[in-house]
């Protein structure tokens, strides 16, 4: 085995050297190949190798022999999804460039494909969340009469599917597609509200600490340090357990407690950022000028500091949204988050998780829990793409 690896590496090294040499000969020692480091040449060879393997694996995935095709089923889906989404993002960007205001056209012109994919995905999610009641074919808690439980996704009766329920049904016979759509409403909506609350808390306190300094800054910062010292998921779990006792007594839904708890825990991270950004703004001469003018605290924070802090805060908002969203999914997966019968992606993954064991011989059956997991992953990736792009823009890097 080790011999194999060494031989492959050496072979690729030789290929890389040959590739660079051939390039130098072909371009009569042009600067591109002449100054190419060996590592870059190696990278080209490695990249080509991986690409070739992916193409081979894809043909395997499409093979008529189900035994072989099943092995490469998920890779096939991934490749197809990747290509489809790329094309969709590309079309979306073209659309954005030709429709809309001057400002939005200009924005789309300088946008990388990843960001346009992110924006497109977020828009689709937002659309699904807002119009869930209209779009979803069934109710989120509706156990459909006459439909079997555990229908395999794919809609192929030969493999245990049902064309009426293309995404299958869950363990008690609810339509997975409808639950996915309602899940967007519940999970994403609650995550959005939680993130907003976390930013309101953390942002306000952070700017106050940066502007006033002194004992208030010390007090808040140390408090935040204490909260941050406790692992956040375990802390949230602990507080949720306490809350689940209180909630019925007080008659307040557990979800409200969850939003508050996650918002407070996440606001510590926002606080740190807001304070750091605020501090670098507070030392500017224009803040000194405003202070000497006799401006009040409100003017300083909202008119002088906040407009200059929007770019990093907005980027953090996207990132924080992902974390909050994942925390909610994780809590739901552990059984203390969004409570049944409300549809939630985390809960769906937990409920159908057992099917993953069928992945090797019945990949379609294993897709059932992966649909919800995929929905989570897709949104997280999309938001991060948009955040990356915004960070890049606000940092002023052009090329």
């Amino acid at each position: 085995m080790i011999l194999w690896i060494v031989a492959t590496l050496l072979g690729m090294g030789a290929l890389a050297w040959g590739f660079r040499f051939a390039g130098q000969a072909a371009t009569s020692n042009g600067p591109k190949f002449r100054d190419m480091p060996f590592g870059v040449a190696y990278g080209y060879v490695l990249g080509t190798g991986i690409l070739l393997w992916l193409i081979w694996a894809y043909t395997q995935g499409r093979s008529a022999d189900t035994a072989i095709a099943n092995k490469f089923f998920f890779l096939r889906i991934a490749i197809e999804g990747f290509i489809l989404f790329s094309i969709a993002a590309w079309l979306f960007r073209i659309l954005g460039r030709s429709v809309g205001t001057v400002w939005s056209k200009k924005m789309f012109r300088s946008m990388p494909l990843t960001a346009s994919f992110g924006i497109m995905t977020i828009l689709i999610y937002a659309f699904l969340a807002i119009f869930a009641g209209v779009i979803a074919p069934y109710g989120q808690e509706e156990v459909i009469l006459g439909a079997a439980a555990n229908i395999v996704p794919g809609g192929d009766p030969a493999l245990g599917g049902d064309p009426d329920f293309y995404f299958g049904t869950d363990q008690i016979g609810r339509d997975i597609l409808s639950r996915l759509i309602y899940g967007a409403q519940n999970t994403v909506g609650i995550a959005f509200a939680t993130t907003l609350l976390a930013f309101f808390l953390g942002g306000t306190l952070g700017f106050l600490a940066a502007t006033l300094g002194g004992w208030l800054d010390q007090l808040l910062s140390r408090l935040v340090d204490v909260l941050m010292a406790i692992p956040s998921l375990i802390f949230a779990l602990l507080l949720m357990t306490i809350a689940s006792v209180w909630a019925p007594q007080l008659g307040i839904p557990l979800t409200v407690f969850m939003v508050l708890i996650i918002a407070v825990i996440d606001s510590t991270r926002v606080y740190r950022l807001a304070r750091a950004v605020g501090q670098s703004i507070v030392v500017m001469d224009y803040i000194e000028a405003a202070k000497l003018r006799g401006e009040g605290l409100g003017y300083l924070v909202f008119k002088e500091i906040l407009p200059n802090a929007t770019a990093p805060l907005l980027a953090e908002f996207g990132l924080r949204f992902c974390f909050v969203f994942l925390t909610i999914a994780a809590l739901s997966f552990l059984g203390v988050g969004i409570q049944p019968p409300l549809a939630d992606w985390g809960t769906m993954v937990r409920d159908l998780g057992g099917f993953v064991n069928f992945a090797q011989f019945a990949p379609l059956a294993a897709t059932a829990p992966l649909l919800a997991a995929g929905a989570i992953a897709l949104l997280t990736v999309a938001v991060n793409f948009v955040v990356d792009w915004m960070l890049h823009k606000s940092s002023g890097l052009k090329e």
Partner: protein
Amino acid sequence: MTEEPLLKMRGVKLEGRSDEKWNPIINGVDLTLARGEVLGLIGESGAGKSTLGLAAMGYTRDGVRISDGSVEFDGIDLLKASAAVKRELLGKRIAYVAQSAAASFNPAHKLMDQHCEGPVQHGVMGRAESEQDGIELYRKLRLPNPEQIGFRYPHQVSGGQLQRCMTAMAMSCRPDLIIFDEPTTALDVTTQIEVLASIRDIVEQFNTAAIYITHDLAVVAQMADRIKVLLKGDEVETADTRTMLSAPTQEYTKSLWAVRSFERPLKPAVLTSAVPVVSVQNVDASYGIVPVLHDVSFDMYEGRTVAVVGESGSGKSTAARCITGLLPPKMGQILVDGQVMPADYRKRSKDQLRQVQMIYQMADTALNPRMSIGQIIARPVEFYLGLKGAEKRKKVDALLEQIELEPTEYYNRLPSELSGGQKQRIGIARALAAEPKFIICDEVTSALDQLVAEGILRLLARLQDQLSLSYMFITHDLATVKAIADEVVVMKDGRVVEQGPKQEMFQPPHHPYTDLLLSSVPEMDPDWLTNLLEERGVDNIGDAAVGKM
């Protein structure tokens, strides 16, 4: 047969990328440099001096490209040379000294370690040999304690010393060509002299060719054999230093030379009965437990300018902070119109705050980048004068006209859309908007080019005449003092060393420190540095002269 030049640049064109297209920075400049020759490259900021200096090494910054022309160093075409060939040349035969030594040294390594890296990497010397050579260079550059200084970290030596360490590092491989990119711009006048003298000595000693980039004409007059003037990427003229100084042929060059002649007429002496607008009385101040001001007293009268001069760290800006109330003094008091002001600015009334306004050195950080020019100026108008709507707009327009900017054009612009000089004008307008009696100008022209700075000084002078304002003018540039001041206060180590009317201050006899400061201001005479060094004795420039007092 004439000797082949060391560096030959022919029709070099450089382009920079912004707004998704390539914009020209340098439009075809020729440059020839013989062995051992020093060429001064001068021009305003944005003229492309630094870009051209870097191109002489065959190097461009990110987002800049050489679109045309050739750069030939000792017969090697740097633009076509491979990376391996360039690696051999750069650092070994061509060296670069950057403007900010503090930002160019790696703070995590000792000076000597960084010094030896070049020679050892290039295989010029071994490590031990290179260390010996480093100590020798440090001695030649007259650094204090040359055996020990190499074992310090960059933050443990002063700015002037660090700049000399960088020159030593550039010298470590005995290059044929060194490019100095504004090496003394960030330094005080007294420190500048030491660095200039050491650079000139060492360049002469090793017969190194150099390109000396600067915007300070007086400095370039001391250093260069020839001067090339650049304007917006074009060469204006090139000539021998003496010819260039005595008989410039181009209009632009003449205007550069003329800047230094601006001077205001003398004003009559202040009446003894007059109440000073601002009076600083026996002020002691400290940052934490570190004392910075000791018994500082001076008065400022209506319609007059008091220039406060001194090196960095002398307490000039601290005195201003005491007057504004940002740093309440430990002892003593600040009087405005004979009334005692509360020490802390938070305890001052709106009207008291209005009377003292400030203009900052860096207009970039003094204007909120997210507010439009109109908003910036309108805020104090609204805040202090309570004007609203159309009245406010009228006042702002009037202010913009006062600072010579067209209101309709500039009202909605953001600060980032203005040039450095225009930004500084906005800073002035914001101060004027409060209708103050007294304005503190903290190094307002030191970040600006000479022509632009002159415009600002003329504007301030005109406003003073119109509105009978008082200025406290903090600066380390004595040429500015000569141009605008009525009275001069010289500060050193937190004490007022000497003060009096300008005409007295620029005539002997003085306190020795004032003397040192005045004689350290570079003059346009190419022999000035040589004469000065002879006068002071070559071995005790700067440091020694300060120590003598």
